[in-house]
């Protein structure tokens, strides 16, 4: 199996922060709004460099989303930043009416998604946001895997016209995608080719999938890993090509099984050629306080769970 070089370890939110400054330098129309979480979102560098284009809205997320929608009238490109829970669930109706239905060029950027937010507990650990956002017509949904990819995705969404949900997180995780990768919205990355099983993952679970594949490789199982950084529009061709070859698939995500990446993949397969699929995701339960690693283990979305799911799907294939 291909060796993966680790270029360091950083949080994906810092990739967003750096990407946003790049966007600010190259696009004078880019604006940033934050609801009292500037430091947590790593938006302070943008604020410092472009104070006239940074808008502190206070703890008022509904107001922030609709101000952003209004800013597009006149051609500005607003990036909103807060935690994923407050970026989606709290403001679903505002996004639905003023951003998605009105088809406004707003970039909703969400940190601290999923269980890896950690000790703050279930009130803040949203596990439904991918589903909420992918159900909205006009919305593009992106979940990058590491620091480099989050930075590239931030730069890419500034050039994309239309509403975008960009989901990233808090923990420090390995950087394994190249700094100079050509990030393309809607184009999946096949990280390593294999013949026995396909793992399709997004976000923090991509690195976990690589760890799982390395262990499986030692047991003679050849894994193909797809980093599905864009949940919508989904790269259906990449799914069909890979699963058509391996004849089984495991999906892995830091999200509810209901409504997540796995559901989107299953939909593609049942409409084409169904193959056995196993889901690694949170199974219809809220999270709790704990360290990110403890939570990933307890809620069955860790490396060992991916390995178990691969073994199960392989047994179903036979």
């Amino acid at each position: 199996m291909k060796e993966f070089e680790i270029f360091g370890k950083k949080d994906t939110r810092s990739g967003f922060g750096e990407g946003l400054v790049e966007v600010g330098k190259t696009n004078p129309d880019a604006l940033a709004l934050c609801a009292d979480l500037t430091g947590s979102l790593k938006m302070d560098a943008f604020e410092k460099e472009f104070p006239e284009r940074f808008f502190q809205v206070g703890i008022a997320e509904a107001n922030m989303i609709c101000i952003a929608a209004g800013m597009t009238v006149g051609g500005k490109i607003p990036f909103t930043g807060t935690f994923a829970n407050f970026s989606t669930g709290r403001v679903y109706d505002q996004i639905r009416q003023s951003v998605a239905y009105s088809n406004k060029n707003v970039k909703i950027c969400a940190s601290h998604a999923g269980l890896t937010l950690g000790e703050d507990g279930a009130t803040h650990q949203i596990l439904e946001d991918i589903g909420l956002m992918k159900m909205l017509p006009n919305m593009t949904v992106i979940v990058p895997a590491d620091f480099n990819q989050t930075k590239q995705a931030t730069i890419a969404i500034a050039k994309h016209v239309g509403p975008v949900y960009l989901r990233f997180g808090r923990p420090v995780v390995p950087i394994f995608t190249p700094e100079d990768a050509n990030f393309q919205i809607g184009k999946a990355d096949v990280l390593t080719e294999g013949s026995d099983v396909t793992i399709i993952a997004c976000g923090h679970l991509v690195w976990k999938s690589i760890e799982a594949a390395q262990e499986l490789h030692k047991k003679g199982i050849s894994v193909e890993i797809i980093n599905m950084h864009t949940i919508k529009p989904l790269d259906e061709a990449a799914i069909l090509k890979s699963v058509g070859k391996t004849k089984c698939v495991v999906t892995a995500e830091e999200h509810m099984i209901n409504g997540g990446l796995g559901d989107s993949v299953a939909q593609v397969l049942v409409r084409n050629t169904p193959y056995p699929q196993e889901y690694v995701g949170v199974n219809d339960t809220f999270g709790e306080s704990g360290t990110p690693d403890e939570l990933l283990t307890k809620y069955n979305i860790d490396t060992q769970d991916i390995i178990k799911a691969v073994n199960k799907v392989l047994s179903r294939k036979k």
Partner: protein
Amino acid sequence: MEVSELEKIACQVRRDIVRMVANVSSGHPGGSLGCADFFTALYFKILKHNPENFDVNGVGEDVFYLSNGHISPVWYSVLARSGYFPVSELATFRKLSSRLQGHPSPAKHLPGIRMASGSLGQGMSCAIGTAITKKLLKDDSMVYSLHGDGELQEGQIWEAAMYAAANKIDNLISVIDANGRQIDGDVEKVLDLGSLDAKWRAFGWEVLSMDGHSFENILKVMAEAKSMTGNGKPIMIIMNTEMGQGVDYMMGTHKWHGSAPNPQQLEDALNQLTQTLGDY
């Protein structure tokens, strides 16, 4: 344009409203009739706008947001009557495949509409966003927004109110349609708002009062409001109106907030409203 001309247009707008809602037996005539004079003054006298060449970005133009989107009939009528789209299209209101959706939306690309509204409480925030963009673009045109008084029960309105004052959004003129009624009854019975004047002043806004059924007063107060812009404060106009204004049996009650007249009631209404510009 003389006040007598505006009065004629408003009468036709009221005919359009009752005919549109009666045609599909659905829609919101009460608030629409109550705001007919304001909309007529806005679109035929006050706004700096470009009906024949609608541009969603509205740079160099005044931008208007209707936050209480359910009174779409009055907006559609004045948009058509002022040249945004053919008057004949008013006949498609609320019908399948129409650009005139039950609640306004840019999704069908109807000229004049920049933002969807209907779910209440969002339009003031949107207006603030556009007001900020206008400042960034050094565009000295105005942003206007209209809200229902019942709509002020939505919490987001007060988020927007705080933001606009704290950030000196002084190129925004918001108007409340203070008709005192909402679907379930009188506003003060459903959820009493207390003193609107005191509330908006406490939130840091300049507050003016306006008679929504006197063109002389509408033009005077709107001009006064505009003269107060650029001084570091957002401006709120509390516009007193009568729900159902112009149709006797629709006035003095909340019952026509969201129900349409039957054919006989329509005839009764049309007998009270002179055809001035020709029906669509």
